[in-house]
């Protein structure tokens, strides 16, 4: 089972879009994919139209009040472990109850998990406790990065966090940095991409996610982009990314 955590503490970089559409593209190749929404804003849950009222969510799974399978929501091509705003309170509770080992909460809750080829975790836009749980669980990070100047500051911070976790004795690899919202018309986008590749070399995915209307429209229809516009630019980019991830092993 391959585990991937999609992380960036900056908001609006394409984390949820990447988690959903990479998951859908991997599923298209016949893989069983579980998407875990670890964000109290529940963007991934909403974008796929998952209804959570009266049902356990990732919050209950983290506190061991529910088994993961009880909270899973199967869709036609993906399985979703949804989130809800309650998760913000749960995060505080876990910090109170497990002050020294809270980063292990997700890893512990998923200890007996089987039956998936890929588990993709979508983190909130922060480097707080929930993100740390996601990082420690998978040990493999995919970092979507806007091809803009301000996004580079955030990247340095994540890399610092990776170093800290590694030094604490947890295995941690950077699967890749994914240039997102790439605008072919601007020289800034081109320059950031060019320099990123020059500087970080094989740590940058060859695939670039171009700006596309279909990526923005798909969540409004509660769909991933591959189901919404199978022949569009967004679907094409995420299929290319899935191929790269599969090559990585």
């Amino acid at each position: 089972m391959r585990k991937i955590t999609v992380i960036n503490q900056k908001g609006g970089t394409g984390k949820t879009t990447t988690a959903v559409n990479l998951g859908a593209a991997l599923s298209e190749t016949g893989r069983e994919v579980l998407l875990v929404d670890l964000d109290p804003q529940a963007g991934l849950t909403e974008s796929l139209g998952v209804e959570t009222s009266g049902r356990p969510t990732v919050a209950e799974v983290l506190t061991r009040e529910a088994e993961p399978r009880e909270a899973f929501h199967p869709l036609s091509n993906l399985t979703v472990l949804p989130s809800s705003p309650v998760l913000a309170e749960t995060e505080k509770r876990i910090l109170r109850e497990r002050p020294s080992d809270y980063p292990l909460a997700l890893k512990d809750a998923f200890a007996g998990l089987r039956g998936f080829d890929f588990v993709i975790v979508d983190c909130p836009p922060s480097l707080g406790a929930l993100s740390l749980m996601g990082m420690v669980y998978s040990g493999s990070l995919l970092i979507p990065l806007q091809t803009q100047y301000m996004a580079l500051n955030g990247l340095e911070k994540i890399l610092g966090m990776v170093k800290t976790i590694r030094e604490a004795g947890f295995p941690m690899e950077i699967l890749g940095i994914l240039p997102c919202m790439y605008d072919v018309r601007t020289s800034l986008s081109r320059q950031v991409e060019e320099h990123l590749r020059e500087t970080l070399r094989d740590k940058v995915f060859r695939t670039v996610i171009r700006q596309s209307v279909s990526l923005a429209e798909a969540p409004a229809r509660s769909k991933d982009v591959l189901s919404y516009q199978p022949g569009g630019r967004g679907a094409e980019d995420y299929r290319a990314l899935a191929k790269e991830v599969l090559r990585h092993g």
Partner: protein
Amino acid sequence: MAKKTLIPAEKWEGLRHAMEEAAGTRKTSKTPVPLAEAAGEAARPERGKKRSAGEKGKEERTGEKGKEKKEKKKKKDKKGKKKKMKGKKGKKRKGKG
């Protein structure tokens, strides 16, 4: 025509350094600390960061902090004197009336 550089070279150098440390190709001498503690420290915003003992020692050696304290004390003393003067004037007026 030369290409206009939109992002300074130092920025990329900093990123390269951070990536080497994150990937473990650049060795650091830090001793392991419990993850919960270390992560809390790493996630803390720069402004609230505690100063290291070395930084504090440097200030003491160069006497920067001492100088600041002396200047503040001088200013405080001057203000105190002025207030006293005002007080005397007030009393005089009271006596005359």
